[in-house]
C-alpha cells in the first residue's frame, strides 16, 4: 500500500512527460463522477475521452481549469453512459490521446448507496484500475433494476434478499431461473414482498445441472424480465470479493454441488455441478 503524493502544477520535465497522466475520481451518491487531472502543459483544449470496449462508442467531456492548476471534467448522473467498460484517456487539441492511470478514487458515497430509482432506472459508474494499472469506468444502466443484498446459504437452499428500483412488485411476481444451455422449462420460485423489498428461496434440487441466471418477473408473465444483480456499491468486480459457500445436495440423479456467484457483469447466477467423489 502506498501514498501517492498529490500532483501539483509543476513545470513538466522530460521525465514527467514519460509518466502517464493520473486522474483523481470523486463519485457522488447520485451516480455522477468528477475527474481531476494535472495540467498537461500543452496548448489547446483538453478533453477526457471515454472509449467503450466495443470500439464504437465514445464520450468526450471538456477538462476545464479548476483550482491548483488542475483540470476538471464532470460526468453527471444525467448523462447516459451505456452499459459496459470504458477506457479513460486525456487528449489535448488533436494530439494523441493518452491513457489515464488511477490516482485517488474517492468512492465513499457509492458504499451502501440507495438510489431513488425515481426515473425508472438505476445508473451505476464505478472507476477502477485495470489489470494493466490503467483507469477504466464500469457502467451499468438498468431500467428497472433488481438489487441483490444478503444471501443466505441453507442446507440445499439459497435465500436471496433484494430490492427493486423503478418498478413495483405485484402479487404475480416470481423469480425465474434461466439455464444457459437448458431449454426445458425452468421451475419458478415465489417471492415474499414488502413494498420494494423482496426475498425468495431457491431449492437447489429443483435445478438441473448447469449455470442458472436469476431473473425477477415483478409483474408476472406479462411484465418485464429483470436480471438480479448486485450493483449498488463501490466494488467494480464483485466475483472475487462476494463469495459464498457451496453445498452438496442429493438429487434423483445423484449428489450435486451448488452455489451462487456473481458473473463478470455482477449479475447473480447459480452453478449446479455433479459432485466429484
Amino acid at each position: 500500500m502506498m501514498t501517492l503524493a498529490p500532483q501539483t502544477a509543476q513545470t513538466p520535465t522530460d521525465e514527467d512527460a514519460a509518466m502517464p497522466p493520473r486522474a483523481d475520481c470523486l463519485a457522488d451518491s447520485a451516480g455522477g463522477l468528477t475527474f481531476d487531472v494535472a495540467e498537461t502543459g500543452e496548448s489547446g483544449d483538453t478533453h477526457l475521452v471515454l472509449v467503450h470496449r466495443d470500439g464504437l462508442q465514445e464520450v468526450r467531456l471538456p477538462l476545464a481549469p479548476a483550482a491548483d492548476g488542475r483540470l476538471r471534467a464532470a460526468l453527471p448522473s444525467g448523462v447516459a453512459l451505456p452499459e459496459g467498460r470504458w477506457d479513460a484517456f486525456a487528449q489535448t487539441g488533436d494530439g494523441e490521446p493518452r491513457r489515464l492511470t488511477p490516482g485517488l478514487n474517492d468512492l465513499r458515497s457509492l458504499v451502501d448507496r440507495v438510489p431513488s430509482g425515481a426515473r425508472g432506472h438505476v445508473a451505476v459508474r464505478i472507476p477502477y484500475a485495470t489489470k494493466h494499472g490503467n483507469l477504466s469506468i464500469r457502467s451499468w444502466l438498468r431500467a428497472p433494476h433488481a438489487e441483490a443484498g444478503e444471501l443466505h446459504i441453507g442446507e440445499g437452499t439459497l435465500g436471496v434478499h433484494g430490492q427493486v428500483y423503478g418498478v413495483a412488485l405485484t402479487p404475480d411476481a416470481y423469480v425465474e431461473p434461466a439455464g444457459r444451455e437448458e431449454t426445458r422449462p425452468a421451475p419458478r420460485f415465489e417471492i415474499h414482498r414488502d413494498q420494494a423489498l423482496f426475498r425468495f428461496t431457491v431449492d437447489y434440487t429443483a435445478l438441473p445441472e448447469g449455470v442458472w441466471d436469476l431473473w425477477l418477473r415483478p409483474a408476472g408473465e406479462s411484465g418485464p424480465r429483470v436480471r438480479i444483480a448486485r450493483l449498488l456499491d463501490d466494488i467494480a468486480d464483485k466475483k472475487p470479493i462476494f463469495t459464498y459457500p457451496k453445498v452438496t445436495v442429493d438429487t434423483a440423479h445423484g449428489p450435486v454441488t451448488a452455489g451462487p456467484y456473481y458473473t463478470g457483469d455482477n449479475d447473480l447466477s447459480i452453478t449446479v455441478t455433479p459432485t466429484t467423489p
Partner: protein
Amino acid sequence: MQISFLIHNAYGIGGTIRTTYNLANTLAEQHDVEIVSVLRHREEPVFARNPRVRLRHLVDLRKGSPGYEGDDPEHLKPARVFPKGEIRYEQYSALTDRRIAGHLSTVDADVVVGTRPGLNVHLARETRRGPARVGQEHLTLDSHSVGLRTELRGAYPRLDAVTTTTEADATAYRTKMRLPGVRVEAVPNSVPAPGIEPADGTGKWVVAAGRLAPVKRYDLLIRAFDLVRAERPDWRLRIYGSGKQKDKLRHLIDELGLYNHVLLMGAANPIEPEWAKGSIAAVTSSLESFGMTIVEAMRCGLPVVSTDCPHGPGEIIDNGVDGRLVPVGNVQAIAGGLLELINDDALRRQMADAALKDSERFDPSRIAERYESIFNGLVSRGGTSKIGRVRGSLHRTRGALLGSAYAVRDAGLTVFGKERSA
C-alpha cells in the same frame, strides 16, 4: 546540509521505501538530498519523488537493460561485508560490497543515512572520515537473529546515531547494546495527510488493512466480528490486503457464516480512500514494529481499536482518547473494543476528531524536523573543525574497540564471529 540516504532498493514497494521517500521529499525542501539505491530492478520508482531528490543506483538489475549486471561473476560471489545474518543477505554480493564501499569512501555529504541493518554495517565500517553516520532501524532489535545482533554489536559503535521507530526499541538498543557516544533516538515513521476528506463517521464499516500474514491475527478479528454481528448485524468489516492466509481466512468466514458481513477486499493502492469509507479501524496483530496502518487510519479520521502488542500501538494510540487498546490475542476484548465505539456514536466521533488531531505529529514536516535536529547536532559535534574531527574519530576508535570486546564474548554464539575485528 547535504544528506545521502543508502537504501536496499528505491524502486520497490514497502514500508521502508515509502517512509524514506516521505522523509527525503520533505528534507529536500531545505537541504540537498540524494537517495542511493544499492539495487535497481525497474525503470521508475513506484513512490512519488520530489524532483529535488537525486536518485541513483549502484548495481543495475534491470533485465534487458544494456547495463544489466545480474550475470556479472562478481555478483554471483557471496558478500563478505554485508552481514550474513541479514534477511536480505542472498541479494548481496562481492559486487554490492565493492560498489557500496566505493560509494561510502567518496560520498559527498554531511550526513549519511543507512536504512537497514546490513547497510548500517557498511556505513559504520566504510564511510570516509567526515560525514555523520546515521543508522535507521525500521524493524526492531529483538526481531534480528542472534548472528546479526552480534554483527551489529561490532559495527554500531562506529555510528554516530541509531534511530528506531519506537521508544520501546530505542530502550532495547540502549540497554542491550553497548553504544558509547552513539546517540540513540526514537523517531516514528511519517505519514502524510491524505489527499482526501477525512471519514465522516457515518458508514457502518470497520476497516482493517495489512498483509494477510499470521502475525496480523486476522483470524481473531473475524472471530471478534462474529460477536459484533450478534449485537450489531448492521455493521460490517472490510479487510484489505493479500497474502498466504487468504484461503484460511476465507474458510473461517464461511464456517462462521459471516459471508454477508466480512469482506476480503484484496490489496488496495492507494489505501487512503478505503479508510475513508469506514468509521472504525481495527488492528489485531501480535506484533507491530511500528504500526504504520494505525497512523494512516488516524490521519483519515478513524479511531483505531488495536491490540496493545509490542512495540508501536501503545506509543501511537492514546487509549480512550483517540482510540482503544485491548489485550493481545483476546477475541472478547477485541469485540468489546469495537462494540464500545459502534454503540456510542458520540464517543466514536469524539475519538475520530482526536485521532485526526493527534496524528498530525506524524506529518512528514514534523518528522523531518526531528531528523533535522538530530543531524544538526551530529554535524556540529563532528564539525568541520580539525578538533571536532579528531574527537569524532577518537570516539569511533573507542567504540570500535568496545564493539570488538563484545564480539569476542559473543563469538561462541556464531560462526561469523571471526569477521568482527576487520
